[in-house]
């Protein structure tokens, strides 16, 4: 059944694509709103151009790598959304699976996973981070 449908889509791609309804970010619910953890993380990165998953907060970071990531993002003078995973054990595990990345901090820019602490530092030092942020 699926095979037949797929072949129709392949041959009538243009026609069918007009009828595709794009999922809206409003449909991404947080857990409080009845969504699951993946939906909540998706909403966070869809609704904020820069998101930092960290240990602690920018004012009170609980880990040197998180502190550094927060300082780097703060240096651009743009608002960035932070999520303290230490107060949310479910999200602490889920974000690692979601990003397929084993450590915290994690940075999302423009809805895409940029990387962890070393990647952020590397891209800050070589100017790539500036390019990515200016492209927002």
């Amino acid at each position, binding site marked *: 059944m699926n095979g037949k449908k797929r072949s129709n889509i392949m041959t009538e791609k243009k026609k069918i694509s007009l009828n595709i309804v794009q999922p809206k970010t409003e449909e991404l619910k947080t857990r409080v709103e009845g969504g699951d953890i993946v939906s909540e993380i998706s909403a966070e990165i869809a609704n904020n151009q820069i998101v930092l998953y960290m240990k602690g907060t920018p004012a009170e970071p609980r880990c040197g790598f998180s502190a550094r990531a927060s300082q780097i993002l703060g240096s651009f003078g743009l608002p960035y959304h932070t999520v303290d995973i230490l107060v949310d054990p479910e999200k602490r595990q889920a974000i690692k699976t979601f990003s397929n990345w*084993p450590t915290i901090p994690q940075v999302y820019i423009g809805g895409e*996973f*940029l*990387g*962890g602490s*070393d*990647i952020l530092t*590397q*891209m800050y030092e070589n100017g*790539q981070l500036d390019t990515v942020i200016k492209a927002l």
Partner: protein
Amino acid sequence: MFEPEKIDQMLRAEINVSHLDIIDLTGTRDHYSVIIVSEDFNGTMPLSQHRRVNAALAAPLASGEIHALQLKTLTPDEWEKAK
């Protein structure tokens, strides 16, 4: 604990390495800093470069033989500029 020579071997087996520094940060052979330069990194984002290195060292990272890995990846051009 994981010998730096084995890290060197595993990375060179998976990646076309043109320069490689492996630094034992604590003298305990489980906290390393790696600086790796490869033409394979040309035209790719740092995320995929780091993923490649992590994949090459997946076994000792998963087992905890390497407890911490501080990583810096560079293309040959970036390495020339950084020197």
